[in-house]
């Protein structure tokens, strides 16, 4: 099959590949770039395990071709932490027992990312809506909602002018 060269900025770094037009973005990330933190749980865009950010917006990467990401910014779970220091949303999942098997967790974290744009405005329902396209079979969701709220609180305290930054407890 005819192959196309593409350049995708993944977690801030440009990555090049020559791919079949039918290659899914999730397979580009996992199998070509070796970023296995993005998971696959279904084939109908229903489960959200493969959620990544494309130009800052959550996208289910099983439902986008790799060639469609040419020249775009993609953020995966591997790009969320600051080196070894967890992002507040990641820390929240630890603090609130927001994961069991962990398979849906990367997708949940990326689906929640846009909530950081205005964390103070986010209520319980907004969190539930943000992750309503992501399936979790282990937790029953309430701890995930608490985890995201923990992360949003920590992030807004860190960015806010009045309160000192919350230093997440080391794992």
């Amino acid at each position, binding site marked *: 099959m005819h192959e196309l060269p593409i350049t995708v900025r993944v977690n801030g770094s440009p990555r090049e590949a020559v791919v*079949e037009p*039918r*290659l899914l973005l999730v397979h580009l990330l*996992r199998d070509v770039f070796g*970023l*296995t*933190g*993005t*998971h*696959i*749980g*279904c*084939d*109908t865009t*229903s*489960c959200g*395990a493969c959620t990544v950010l494309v130009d800052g917006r959550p996208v289910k990467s099983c439902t986008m071709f790799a060639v469609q990401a040419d020249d775009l910014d993609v953020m*995966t*779970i*591997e790009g*969320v*932490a600051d080196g070894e220091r*967890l992002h507040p949303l*990641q*820390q929240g*999942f*630890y*603090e609130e*027992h927001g*994961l*069991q*098997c*962990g*398979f*849906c*967790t*990367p997708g949940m*974290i990326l689906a929640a990312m846009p909530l950081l744009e205005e964390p103070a405005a986010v209520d319980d*329902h907004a*969190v*539930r*809506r943000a*992750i*309503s*396209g*992501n*399936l*979790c*079979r*282990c*937790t*029953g*969701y*309430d*701890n*995930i*909602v608490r985890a995201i709220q923990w992360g949003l609180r920590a992030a807004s305290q860190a960015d806010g002018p009045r309160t000192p930054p919350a230093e997440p407890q080391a*794992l």
Partner: protein
Amino acid sequence: MTAPAGIIGQRLKRVEDRRLVMGGGAYVDDIHVAGELHLAVLRSPFAHARINSIAAERARQMPGVVNVFTAADLGARNGPIPSPVWAPPALGLVERVAPFLQPELMHVLARDRVRHAGEAIAAVVATDRYVAEDALAEIEVDYEPLTVVSDIDAALEPGAPLVNEDWPDNVAARFVVEKGDVDAAFRAADRVVTARLTIPRSTLTPIENRGVVAEPDRRSGGLTVWSSTQQPHYLHRALEELLGIPGDAIRVVAPDVGGGFGVKSMVYPEELLVPVLALALGRAVRWTDTRRENFVSAVHSRDQRHDIELALRADGTLLGLRDRFVVDAGCSNIEGLVCPYNTAAHLPGPYRIPALRIESLTVLTNKVPNAAHRGAGRPEAVFALEGALDVAAEALGLDGVELRRRNIVGPADLPYDVGIPYRDGKPLVLDGDSLGCLEDAVEAIGWSGFRARQDELRLAGRYLGLGFASYIEGSGIGPYESAHVRVHPSGRVVVTVAAPSQGQGHETTLAQICAASLGARVQDVRVIQGDTAALPFGTGTFDSRTAIVVGNAVAVASAQLKEKVLAAAADALEVSPLDLDVVDGRIEVAGSPGAGLTLGQLATRIGPGTGRLGAAGPGLEVHSGYELPSIPFSTGAHACIVEVDTETGEVRIEHYVVVHDSGRLINPLIVEGQLMGGLVQGLGGALLEELVYDEDGQLRSGTFMDYGLPRSTDIPRVTLLHRESATASNPLQVKGVGESGVIPVAAAVVGAVNDALRPLGARLATYPVTVDRVLTLLADAAARPVAERVAV
């Protein structure tokens, strides 16, 4: 031995989380091996058909295709072999119940006949998964469709087509379990109620599908297999049998597993296929199923129909229970009596019922095999019994709570021998306070004020209902597990166990147990699990057993290691072991603070090259085990208030209460997580999920678009309460919790819906309680004469 204290019972955050929240989990599909090939499976589109021929030449010629394999190509390595998960009934059960059970054999690929839509027929191995999938379309199979056995009634028709041609009929298992003179109980009854209650077919769909990677190992002549499984040691046993290779040359690893719930408590044909082909080709082979494949080839569950009768006195006292239930096993009764007998054993629940007769029939149909998912026959039992209790309460004009109070096992009854054997053939003895759990649920749900509110709202056209369901859970089937515990010179304590985690937090809870028993710091304890090379013998993670059987094994081994540590330290420090204790990873000398040494220092001092080989054997390590004397039974009660919109058919849960007693909590954070997760799976089952087959044996709800899982926006207000009754059943004083959350949910929800709809003369006898089902029920009720509507 007394239970270790301190770190046990603490809400410790999980050790395993850091790598998982960073995307650093190593699930099977994340594991890559040099030179690996990709496998794709051709599956039958027919539920029942003869295979006349398979033409794969065109597929074989495609660029990138290495080869195509059918049953004929695999020869003896296609099986049959005895399934390792297919357990013959325990001796005690054979003596008391004498069950009839047809043995089941495993094949890898279908030979001349397919028995369910989705059955594996051929495998393509290619350099790329996309190419392998392309090649599937080029394989031509000549099928001759056969009459489909589409449900239990069709299976039991005289002269029905045979799902298994070697059997005289479609009956896979049959047994009767009895206690007391049940016919006399029914003759003496003031009131007899009957109900036909149906538990639908469902599946618990872990978000990670199945996957296998197999890599030949030229040094050992065997291979390494990574599989997304709850039972690596059962897979190991099956591979040893099928491949004819000594087990020590086969290594099976369950890496991070993305949920199991029983779906992965199985040895699957694909788990044998991938290793067989890796050996045949001399190259690593990998396979992951798609969700669509998973729906039509990973085991389903539940799917029972009960005809249940209760004999009662006018005051509500239970005198007897008769039940005849039929299990739709699908095309292969792959786990024997596990679910049917679990259902029978749990059917009396926590209630005193003097006389019982439970008759079970398991039949084959042309569907995906039915096996144990979380709950494993228990939710079915609770749905049947609690549903019948609701009918009885209505017939006797009693409140459901009063009827249950009158019959439930309370502290005065304990220990309570149910009077029938458990699945292990031993007596079934309850030691939990089921009455206390019920009273807690009654209080927390606000029962006392509810009836007045219900009456008031009905006048306003709003239909609220209250449902209760109590349960017991036999947990921790044994007989035993082992644990290896070793102190390394680094000071790290490595605990190795057989049973792998699929999200239950073993790395944390088992570390807590070891730390408490040994005197180590919990952050120094690392848990290795699910690797047959690390610990060759064990069974796996199922039946809510890890905390009980594996946890106690870790406690025993760690306590024995502590003795060894004290003896070695006494020798090294030239003091009496009686003056020593291990605290926070240090061996302390009584009365001499700072005189001791750390576990790591001791391990270094007595290690090869520096130390002496003492009488207790090399190094600071112990391999020991724990055998469960009898099965511990958890108990609990659920209650919920629902509102049914009779215009739209929608059911909204206003409040849901869980009261659970599983003895001592090792880590309440994790226990609550298990209960909540189980509850929401139960709510999915009660309200949304059903595997619907048509009469041609085609699965009509086989994607996440048709099979509705609960989402974040579907979760009601939940109150979760614990009781921690003492139990003498095991040293840690723990009982199972993994499955408990799901067990009574459908019964409680349907009970509440029926309570809401009672004035309309409508009663559900199955679930999920979908909008469509509610509206149909209401329309049917409205079409009946009023006199019939109020009759029970």
